[in-house]
């Protein structure tokens, strides 16, 4: 097997994504408006929300890979599920770190046990369990089936996170209930742009991680 970036197309994508991300940061810093009361802290939103989006998208792919693993019985889908679970957890970790950093100056405290934060933390903990099960679950074939099942079940929490700001009583809500469509174009367009660039970045990360997992499997098989 070859190095991932020996492939010209992957190198082109990497350079393109670096360029797009630098443009994204410049656009956020220079072109987005300062929101009164939050100033620079509001601009955290342009990476916090795309990180959450990529995390949830990744967990959706874990679920699809789990279903495909059961239908096809192909080990490739187990690798896709593992790669997506790892990257999803990286981004959800970033969400759980950057959220409290934003909340410290805005709420006056980093954490409140309100529905969206709590359900996101539960999702993160489910995936910590997922990796523990993969590491210590015993027989390899059985672990793959358990991982596929857990990946499917864990995704149930994602729509709960989405509706949590409306589902539970308003008195216990602290999360900003922002209707993105009602935002001015000065905020909406850079936000959508950032969302798109993070999605393209995610595609490359997933492809790269699957490649590294395949290289590792081949190495273990060759020994």
């Amino acid at each position, binding site marked *: *097997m070859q190095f991932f970036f020996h492939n010209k197309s992957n190198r082109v994508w990497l350079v393109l994504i670096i360029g797009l991300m630098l443009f994204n940061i410049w656009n956020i810093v220079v072109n987005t408006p300062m929101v009164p009361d939050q100033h*620079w802290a509001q601009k955290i939103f342009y990476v*916090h929300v795309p990180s959450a989006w990529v995390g949830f998208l990744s967990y959706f792919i874990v679920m699809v890979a789990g279903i495909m693993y059961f239908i096809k019985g192909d080990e490739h889908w187990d690798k896709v599920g593992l790669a997506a679970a790892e990257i999803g957890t990286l981004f959800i970790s970033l969400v759980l770190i*950057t959220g409290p*950093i934003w909340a410290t100056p805005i709420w006056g405290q980093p954490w409140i046990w309100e529905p969206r934060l709590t359900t996101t933390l539960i999702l993160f903990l489910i995936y910590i369990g997922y990796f523990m099960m993969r590491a210590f679950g015993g027989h390899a074939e059985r672990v793959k089936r358990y991982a596929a099942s857990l990946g499917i079940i864990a995704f149930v929490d994602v729509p709960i996170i989405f509706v949590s700001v409306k589902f539970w009583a308003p008195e216990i809500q602290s999360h900003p209930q922002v209707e993105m469509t009602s935002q001015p174009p000065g905020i909406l367009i850079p936000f959508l742009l950032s969302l798109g660039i993070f999605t393209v970045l995610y595609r490359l*990360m997933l492809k790269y991680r699957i490649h*590294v997992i395949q*290289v590792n499997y081949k190495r273990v098989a060759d020994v």
Partner: protein
Amino acid sequence: MYNFWGYFLAVYLIVFGAIVGWFIIQFRMENRYLNDNRYTQSE
């Protein structure tokens, strides 16, 4: 009064630092795995 700029900077350094760090880790892992493979196959 909070230093909003400091919070903004911290978030961007953490997010992009983590992403760049992730790529470096993958590159090093890939390098090690492929070199291991070549070594075992040449024996």
